[in-house]
């Protein structure tokens, strides 16, 4: 199928290092991010520690997803048959444009100019809100944080907590200024803010004839769709309107109803640090006289089959969008989500975005490098995505792309020289014998604190320690009783 064409990456995005510098300068945002990510991290650790079978659950999640992805064509067709049997209409979208076109047509058919929305990564990925707005249809986000982002004319910066970059004082001001009917003396107590949003949204729910949602899971055997949420707004959207349109990535399918058991344990604990989330909605096609009587499901590819074709990268498609990797990431904690230039931020975004969009753009090529490879993301991932491994795999793809397009020649030359020096013992030893005393003489006893050029990126925050006058191997060779060429078979590798 085809590459993602929609705004998975924001059009004004900059490569990660530059974008990160902008975000790092926002002191208040950094304090909020640090506080909130640590709060969720701690909550998650506590509820995960309660389960002595957590590792088994993770492995079960990994295996169910892997099996599904291995036979994705089979399970998708099974899901389509089950959905159709249950009275739903199934649509297939190869890319964002097709998905947006289908949803717009389905809304237009109803004659409505407003749709209520359940928080959905798939519709954010394809830029559905912007697409509908440009065609005279108003999408109303009903998740509180998503609504805040929408009112602010802002972008989400977290998968589960999209307004994580705003504190409650900012949210109070936003509601007071931009939400019709908000009393000017509204306080900034979270309960008060939520109550005001609820009053506002209740009217939208009662007005709504059309809803658009995503889905956390699609059960292939029954055609059941699942939405996992915290505020109950999803329940309103999924039951009140006449027409319900669900946009869902093709990787969201699971084979059987019983498989949900595993994911409904993994997801809330990993995501919000709760044993169970407050509201889980399951629906299977149309139930006469109960809930939406017109149910549409749009299966979205948008680059996913390309990711599936990569034996290393495809594990990113196991992702259940819990955000545990964001909350634990020392990079995300400091930059927030906007630096990633995509609706998918953090470690998972750094491997998902370049796979969905390909490596043609420097922004996408910069993302796999936005990690110190500390491994905290892999440790918490409920479906065991080895994010550091995929990051290094995608780094190689980025370097390959630049080699083919004759870009970044200086770095490649430097690495070629380093490779030569490390793979040839004679060169390696000459380098140490000549280079170290030289560096020692230059750096003296205190080391260096102001290197020019690329070196400045190190010395802007750190000194270079004084190099020793002599390498370890030179010292060893000088020791009495040491055989300078110890190493048995090793001499063959000279």
């Amino acid at each position: 199928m085809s590459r993602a064409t929609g705004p998975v990456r924001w059009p004004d995005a900059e490569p990660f290092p530059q974008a990160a510098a902008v975000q790092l300068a926002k002191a208040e945002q950094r304090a909020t991010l640090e506080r909130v990510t640590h709060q969720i991290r701690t909550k998650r650790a506590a509820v995960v520690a309660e389960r002595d079978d957590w590792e088994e659950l993770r492995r079960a999640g990994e295996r169910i997803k892997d099996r599904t992805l291995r036979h994705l064509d089979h399970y998708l067709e099974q899901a389509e048959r089950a959905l159709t049997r249950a009275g739903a209409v199934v649509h297939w979208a190869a890319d964002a444009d097709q998905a947006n076109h289908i949803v717009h047509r389905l809304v237009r058919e109803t004659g409505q100019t407003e749709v209520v929305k359940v928080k959905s990564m798939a519709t954010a990925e394809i830029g559905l809100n912007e697409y509908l707005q440009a065609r005279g249809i108003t999408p109303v986000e009903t998740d509180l944080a998503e609504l805040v982002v929408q009112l602010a004319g802002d972008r989400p910066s977290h998968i589960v907590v999209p307004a994580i970059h705003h504190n409650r004082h900012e949210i109070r001001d936003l509601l007071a200024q931009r939400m019709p009917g908000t009393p000017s003396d509204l306080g900034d107590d979270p309960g008060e803010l939520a109550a005001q949003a609820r009053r506002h949204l209740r009217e939208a729910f009662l007005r709504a004839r059309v809803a658009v949602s995503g889905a956390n899971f699609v059960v292939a055997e029954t055609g059941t769709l699942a939405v996992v949420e915290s505020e109950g707004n999803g329940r309103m959207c999924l039951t009140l309107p006449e027409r319900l349109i669900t946009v869902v990535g093709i990787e969201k399918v699971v084979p059987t109803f019983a498989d949900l058991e595993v994911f409904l344990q993994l997801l809330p604990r990993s995501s919000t640090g709760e044993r169970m989330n407050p509201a889980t909605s399951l629906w299977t096609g149309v139930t006469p006289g109960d809930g939406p009587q017109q149910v549409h499901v749009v299966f979205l590819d948008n680059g996913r089959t390309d990711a599936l074709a990569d034996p290393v990268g495809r594990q990113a498609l196991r992702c259940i969008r819990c955000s545990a990797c964001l909350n634990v990431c020392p990079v995300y904690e400091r930059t927030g989500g906007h630096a990633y230039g995509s609706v998918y931020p953090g470690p998972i975004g750094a491997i998902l975005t370049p796979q969905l969009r390909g490596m043609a753009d420097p922004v996408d090529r910069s993302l796999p490098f936005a990690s110190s490879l500390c491994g905290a993301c892999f440790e918490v991932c409920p479906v065991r995505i080895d994010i550091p491994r995929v990051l290094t795999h995608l780094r190689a793809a980025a370097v390959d792309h630049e080699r083919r397009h004759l870009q970044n020649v200086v770095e490649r030359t430097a690495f070629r020289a380093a490779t030569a020096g490390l793979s040839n013992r004679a060169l390696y030893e000459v380098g140490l014998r000549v280079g170290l005393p030289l560096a020692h003489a230059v750096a003296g006893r205190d080391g260096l604190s102001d290197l020019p050029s690329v070196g400045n990126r190190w010395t802007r925050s750190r000194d270079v320690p004084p190099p020793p006058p002599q390498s370890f191997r030179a010292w060893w060779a000088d020791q009495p009783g040491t055989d300078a060429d110890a190493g048995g078979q090793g001499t063959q590798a000279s």
Partner: protein
Amino acid sequence: MRLALFITCVNDAMAPDTGKATAAVLRRLGYDLEFPTTQTCCGQPLLNSGYPRPTMPLVERFVQTFADYDVVVSPSASCVSMVRETYPRLAADAGGTLAADIAALAPRVLELSELLLDVLKVEDVGAYFPHTVTYHPACHGLRSLHLGDRYERLLRSVDGLTLLDLPRDEECCGFGGTFAVKNADVSSAMVGSKVESVLSSGAQVLSTSDNSCLLNIAGALVRRDPTVRTMHAAEILATTRADGEAWRRRLPARAQVPVGAVRPGGAG
């Protein structure tokens, strides 16, 4: 037991004292190290920077250099992790006989604390270090090798040493190889937090299992408070009563103030 030292390129060039210390600790316990001179680098810097193909000759070199030894020990959790966790995968992708060679060798490649505690069954290595120390469990030791509290146990057994907790110890110091220069601003923010943690621990010495992390933290720490020392854990384990204060000579000139002196502006 034929015991080989894998010094690693960073230690060979930038921290020879860690290699000397590793040899000294083992000699004191009655084990002689060999140093096969055909060793260079495990290849991790190349692989992690997006250059997997040039990594392979280094994998082959490592196997040829160390295949005949019973145990290979290294004072770097990160490089041991590369060999034990990543080499098997690289070899499987490469095909041929390399995979079998690595399957035979990799389990015998041990980080220093694993050799001391798991193989030699020694917790008290006879060291003397009358200072307060805090320990940063470097990421690869923590999450890849799962070293757990091995170094804390070894350090607690050192005569005179007081081990102090490092707040938020499991957080990365921000080194990450080329990450430190490719994403210098984020890396600087990360090492800044680590430095504040070290200072709030109140310890006189920061120790860890990886000199690459230590170079990063030390480089930032010396600007914030030059009186806090940084030492690889092996160097602490190598220090005995006989050494007296000799280790202090290795420190930068501006840090040549007595241990325990009042720190300029330092927390804790």
